[in-house]
């Protein structure tokens, strides 16, 4: 026990040799693992650059004072943001887009979550087919959806009302809510609801106090998708916006046909920031992080 390497040089030397022998294969094993981590890190950085580079280009375009895309930029200016915020058309379009996105989020969330519950619980005949039908707006080119809805409204002789635009957006955002809610319902423990009912809770109370909190992650994720998809929606809006009530993407498209300056970049930056703020806002108000694994 009391023997130490300091007191026994030959033993110390043996241990060092043994340690070197043990370390050699260990080092050989760690090397590739480290190498693999670097490759993994490099791939992730490359993916991040791929995802964020377009945003960086938009930001550079928005801050560059020249009236055209120029690289490298010649300076930093807020003139395009000033022009964007001073434009009545852009401000109206921004407000209108937010309004439509909010109404769409509410309607798509209520309808999508209800549909998902019915599909998961209702023992509906042909439930799988219904799911496919409900997801079909994702498979159909959105521009065709817009055109079809436009023709429907024309046939009904209702013009191009705002509720028609919200209905169109709801149609294309519904699949996101249905899909994300169905995903959480897949692992739902029905015994929790049965327990609540056995303890005397009404169906409504069971839904609001047991079911809804448990499916909240899927519903919230779907709602976020619905808001962002609606806010950025272009193909469906193209046919459904009415004169004087254009959404921001449609206004941007019309603008760039005549003026391709940094205002487009500024509007895009505002759009990105707004989408980001919605996610942050939801996180702060309903604790998104604890529910949604994005």
């Amino acid at each position: 026990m009391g023997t130490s390497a300091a007191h026994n040089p030959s033993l110390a030397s043996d241990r060092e040799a043994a340690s070197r022998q043990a370390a050699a294969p260990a080092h050989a094993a760690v090397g590739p693992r480290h190498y693999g981590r670097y490759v993994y890190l490099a791939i992730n950085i490359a993916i991040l650059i791929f995802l964020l580079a377009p945003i960086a280009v938009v930001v550079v375009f928005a801050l560059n004072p020249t009236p055209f895309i120029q690289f490298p930029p010649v300076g930093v200016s807020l003139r395009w943001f000033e022009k964007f915020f001073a434009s009545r058309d852009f401000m109206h379009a921004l407000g209108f887009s937010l309004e439509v996105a909010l109404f769409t989020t509410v309607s798509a969330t209520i309808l999508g979550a209800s549909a998902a519950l019915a599909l998961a619980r209702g023992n509906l005949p042909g439930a799988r087919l219904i799911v496919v039908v409900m997801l079909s707006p994702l498979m159909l080119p959105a521009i065709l959806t817009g055109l079809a809805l436009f023709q429907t409204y024309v046939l009904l002789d209702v013009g191009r009302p705002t509720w028609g635009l919200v209905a169109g957006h709801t149609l294309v955002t519904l699949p996101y809510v249905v899909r994300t809610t169905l995903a959480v319902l897949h692992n739902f423990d029905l015994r929790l609801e049965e327990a609540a009912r056995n303890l005397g809770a009404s169906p409504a109370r069971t839904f609001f106090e047991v079911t809804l909190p448990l499916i909240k992650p899927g519903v919230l994720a779907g709602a976020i998708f619905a808001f962002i998809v609606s806010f950025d929606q272009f193909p469906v809006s193209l046919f459904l916006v009415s004169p004087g009530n254009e959404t921001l993407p449609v206004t941007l498209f019309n603008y760039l046909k005549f003026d391709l300056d940094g205002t487009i970049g500024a509007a895009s930056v505002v759009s990105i920031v707004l989408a980001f703020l919605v996610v942050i806002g939801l996180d702060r108000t309903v604790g998104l992080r604890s529910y949604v694994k994005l």
Partner: protein
Amino acid sequence: MMKALGSTRLSRRRFLAAGASLAIGAIAAPHVARADDPVLRITGWGGKWGDVMKAEIGPAFESEFKCKLQTDSAFPYLPKLQASSRSAPIYDVLHTNSNEQWAAAEMGLVEPKVDPKLVPNLADVYPYAVSDKIVGVSIFTSAIGLGMRTDKGYGSITSWKELWDAKYNGVRGGYVIPVNSLGQAFLMMCGTLFGKGQTDLDAAYTALEKLKPIKIVDFTGAMEKMLLSGEVGLCVIHDSGIYRYDGQNQPTDFIAPSEGVLSLEQVLTITPGSKVKELANAYVNYMLRPEVQKRLAETVWYSPANRKVKLDAKYDAKLLTTPEKVSKLIQVDWKWYNERKDEIDQRVNRIFRA
């Protein structure tokens, strides 16, 4: 608890009733709105055109004719008109470039001609505005020619054919022909320059092949910016795309080639199913009034169709405001072009894809 439940049932009923009322109200709203002043539904451009129309010209028309002007400035107009009922079209007056008007006329979506008895100002327009190459009436035109950078030492350019000079390789600009009117008009010009005329497509295709390498864009606005940034040194462009930067000290200039300039007309037509035809004709007539023409021409640098318009010297010097200048305009046979558009699109796509 029972009371609460009862009240819930009641509120649900109320909710459903309110929802139904709202839905009926929303559906009925357009019909109710129709009971007010007559509404003239038109299409129109954005940008400065849209600004001046919204701020001055539109309100003045509404005030004079006691109506409401509803302007759709969200493209695409033709598919929307096509999708709407012939007897109740979505627009009363269609404003587009000439090529789309021809397509609309072929489908019976717009009336091919405007009645001079109902639009008296037609008597004052240049012949090109109501020629057999025009459906409806052209209220303005731009001249399609060449745009160049003046700071690159290119020297004097006088002919379309100089666009093919090898020294412009890498800085030559053109358009995605299937989606851009300027590109389509330029293709016809290629037939005239190198073949037997506008309809000599083989000569045009050969000329386009020789034009490569070329930077192509779909929007004219994008070409303006490429020229301003110096990415392009010589390109096909309309005069208003250059003149609109007048006074900004930009090193760009418009060249009207000696072979003539192509016309890019702003055309108005009336839809056959319009319920407010009198108002529609009044609008067309109003847009041809000298004071309206002058205001718009000096805002967006379009050449007015009305011969009686007197522009300020700065604009008069550059725009097509005399019979001599107007005689240099070459109009495209869009009817002929549209009949072959699919075939042309496929061919030019092959040329530029390669």
